[in-house]
């Protein structure tokens, strides 16, 4: 793969296809869009196959000094690879979801989606700070148009809110970036990730980046744009919004906030944890009382994203890996849930939960798919949701047991609102004639949902495929932030060393390797505790 600009190609293919879509008819535009997204999926698989796990940290590196002040510099590590895979995997599904649902201005619609895909890949591959910013911000324009043109009744308000909210967050980040480049003298992200900014400056820089990422994420209380945008966006818009665009916030934390400002990240750990804890509980409770399906799933997204931030700011391996897996799993599952809502919305044109009921009688296939994704969202073992949430909770427990306690209640609440949703939609009497008249899934819909099931199961049963590419990068990240890691309350306290050693020897025979690995890291931390 040496020298072959595969990343540029992955950005160029959807971009050119988007241009092509604009000048053709509706049916041609659909075909072009599907072909382009499949080509990108193929390129993505090629990328994954050729990604050398344990090789250089940055692979497929490209660089062209085209713009004077900043460069066309691309490259990926394992974390970016996985997020790119998520994007290229979801895109054909998005196009498929809109195949019949969108009849209005199809060429523009397809062009906007392809543009979003190109920009998302750009965000995850950019190795230049300003190139990243341009891709990061540029996504606003097509998303604004998607929500505003093809959205529901209140689409205009939602599109403004989405645009201005996220723009305000991002411009502050730009000022911070300018300052950083002035001080560090480079725009190269890998170099900046290793640059030590003075601790007092980190505080401000961290806050500026936080303003942007917390809105994109979204974290409570900056999440209010999300339910509006989701409810009004077309189905595919919601899928891509939940599936990939929300990941830009988490990606930002992993790529910028943590490695570039480790001290400030530690300093603000409680801010993030506090907001995340509130988010898990409050947004879950809000989700419980929603009468609109999309809004319910949107609030559940906010709660799931809180698990991401909890995991990331736990400052340990389980937390960060768990956060990544939650992001990937949430991308698949909530994307799939929005697609499920879209399926019945296309039939009845309402998202009111109360208008449905008894779907398991007349749409058994649909009920099975919906049940699977409901369970995956709850985090049933064997599905992707379990692995991510479990790991990030383990990480949280290691960092602080109270955080883990509060976050776990979120899981219970999550089960409550999802099961309650499922009961109201799929069970109960089939007493509404128009609901009873709804046909079951078509072949197209089944073929759209099946790959999502497969991916969610794969991630749930054998997460190693997804953990392996990112492991070296998480190690590198940990090496970078470890010096600032805040003390945790879940370390062994000096008590009766002899008894502890005996218990350790007998009780933990299995999984000893893991425990031994821990012991090494715990020693200095315990000593640290004594010093206090």
């Amino acid at each position, binding site marked *: 793969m040496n020298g072959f600009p595969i990343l540029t190609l992955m950005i160029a293919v959807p971009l050119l296809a988007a241009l092509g879509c604009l000048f053709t008819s509706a049916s041609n535009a659909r075909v072009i869009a599907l072909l382009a997204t499949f080509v990108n999926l193929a390129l993505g698989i090629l990328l994954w196959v050729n990604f050398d796990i344990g090789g250089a940290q940055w692979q497929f590196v490209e660089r062209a000094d*085209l713009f004077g002040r900043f460069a066309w510099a691309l490259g990926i590590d394992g974390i970016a690879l996985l997020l790119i895979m998520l994007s290229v995997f979801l895109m054909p599904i998005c196009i498929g979801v809109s195949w019949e649902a969108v009849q209005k201005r199809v060429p523009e619609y397809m062009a906007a989606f392809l543009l979003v895909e190109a920009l998302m890949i750009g965000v995850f591959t950019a190795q230049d700070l300003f190139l990243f910013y341009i891709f990061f911000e540029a996504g606003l324009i097509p998303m604004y148009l998607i929500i505003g043109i093809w959205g529901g009744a209140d689409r205009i308000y939602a599109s403004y809110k989405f645009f201005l909210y996220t723009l305000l967050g991002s411009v502050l980040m730009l000022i911070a970036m300018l300052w950083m480049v002035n001080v560090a003298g480079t725009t190269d992200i890998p170099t900046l990730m290793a640059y030590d900014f003075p601790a007092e400056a980190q505080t401000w820089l961290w806050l500026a980046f936080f303003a942007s990422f917390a809105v994109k994420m979204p974290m409570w209380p900056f999440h209010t744009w999300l339910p509006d945008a989701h409810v009004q966006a077309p189905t595919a818009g919601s899928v891509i919004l939940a599936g990939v665009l929300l990941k830009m916030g988490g990606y930002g934390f992993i790529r910028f906030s943590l490695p570039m400002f480790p001290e400030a990240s530690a300093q603000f750990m409680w801010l993030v944890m506090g907001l995340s804890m509130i988010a898990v509980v409050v947004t879950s409770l809000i989700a419980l009382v929603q009468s609109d399906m999309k809004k319910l799933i949107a609030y559940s997204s906010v709660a799931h994203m809180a698990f991401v931030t909890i995991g990331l700011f736990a400052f340990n391996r389980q937390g960060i890996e768990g956060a990544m897996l939650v992001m990937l799993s949430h991308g698949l599952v909530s994307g799939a849930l929005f697609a499920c809502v879209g399926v019945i919305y296309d039939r009845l044109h309402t998202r009111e939960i109360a208008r449905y009921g008894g779907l398991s009688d007349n749409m058994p296939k649909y009920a099975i798919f919906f049940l699977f994704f409901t369970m995956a969202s709850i985090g049933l073992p064997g599905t992707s949701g379990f692995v991510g949430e479990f790991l990030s909770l383990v990480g949280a427990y290691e960092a602080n047991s109270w955080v883990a306690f509060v976050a776990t209640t979120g899981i219970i609440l999550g089960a409550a609102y999802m099961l309650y949703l499922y009961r109201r939609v799929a069970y109960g009497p089939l007493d509404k004639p128009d609901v009873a008249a709804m046909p079951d899934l078509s072949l197209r819909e089944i073929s759209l949902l099946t790959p999502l099931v497969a991916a969610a199961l794969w991630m749930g049963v054998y997460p190693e495929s997804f953990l392996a590419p990112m492991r070296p990068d998480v190690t590198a990240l940990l090496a970078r932030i470890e010096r600032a890691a805040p003390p945790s309350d879940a370390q062994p306290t000096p008590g009766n060393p002899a008894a502890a050693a005996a218990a350790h020897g007998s009780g933990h025979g299995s999984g000893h390797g893991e425990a031994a690995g821990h012991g090494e890291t715990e020693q200095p931390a315990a000593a640290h505790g004594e010093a206090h």
Partner: protein
Amino acid sequence: MSIAASLSLTLPEVILSVGSIVLMLAAAYRGDGATRGISWAAVAVLAAAGLALLGPAGNGGDAFDGLYHADSFAALAKVLIYIAAGVSIIVAPTFFARGGQLRAEYPVLILLSSVGMGMMVSAGDLLTLYVGLELQSLAAYVLASLMRRDNRSAEAGLKYFVLGALASGILLYGISLLYGFTGSTMFGVIATAVGGELSTGLLFGLVFVMAGLAFKISAVPFHMWTPDVYEGAPTPVTAFFASAPKVAAMALLVRVAVEALGPAADAWQQIVIFTALASTILGGVAAIGQTNIKRLLAYSSINNVGFALIGLAAGGEAGVAAVMFYMTVYVAMTLGSFLCVLQMRDTYGRQVETIASLSGLSRTRPGLAAALAIFMFSLAGIPPLFGFWPKFLVFDAAVAAGLLPLAVIGIATSVIGAYYYLRIVKTMYFDEPAAEFAQSDSPVEGGLIALSALFVSPLGYLLIPVLGTVTVNAARALF
């Protein structure tokens, strides 16, 4: 220095002056029937003046004992001015043909105004500055009221004249104070004088000069005339006002601030910071309620001038280079927007100016809607459009100069501005179609729109190395 050498340095102005006088005679003898020919001849004169910049006039040093600077800063500003003036001449005949006869004076007046602007950006002396400014302004007053039978046009001309005269008076008063307290009108001598203790008289002079110039760039709080004049003047004239004189006045302000008052930067920096922030905020907030697209673009120009001033507040080479870069992209964006406004005609060929008439434009005229959307997003400074880059540069200069609070507040105000640009896009893309516009009948205008849209599209980023070098060279000429 011999007169001949000085004249060779001022070759662009010489060409423009001779050309405008000859064309004026032609207009007088041949009447309005020859307007098209005179227009193209005027464009040729502008092109010739631009080509003259390749010679000694481009970067040849001082002429007339320092009254006139022929440096790369002036050359860059002149190129922008000539382009903007040329476009304003090219698009005029079709516009006026629909709403009455185009008078042959139009291209001549624009040429005369260009002479004045050339003198402004090259001025090395307060009197050269003033003469240039007045030449530019007097031509502009007439241009604003060119459609004599239109009440709004007449009102615009009168308003522009009265308020412009007031500003000239303020400026002249400031100039007299500076002259009185420094003993010279030469920028170099003034710079030495203000380098020491700043007396009250000097300070007053400085403030009055800055205020007079702020009027010309329509920075808040001297912006009141802008919306009325922009709305009332014929659209090609508005396009001209929003582009060429803005560049000239901004370049002039930068030159005066750096060359003449550079050592007193502490004194004027606060003024510039205040007007910059006031302009971005007022330009953003006041535009929200507008229903007329030309008024909206007037507030947009106030808003943009505010951002450019942030570069001046930052000062230094980087700041000045950022200002010039800003004006370069701004000219393309604003000309492009006004060219789109020129396309807004109902099926009877009458000009319409309400924002509501743009409803659903993306379905009736997709190309035009896309171009206008590009200009709007670009004016809002949303990447990946090129309008982002000059904003980036001015904020970069401000951050590098340590003006962090200014940068933070300034960039936050850009979000206010984004709202009303979004509103235009919303009207064009989200709303149901209104009455259809007439189809475009001018391939030249279409081509110019496409060209400027291409310039502010992401492809513009490829020009950064070239434009960056040019603007930095221009800025270096002042230090």
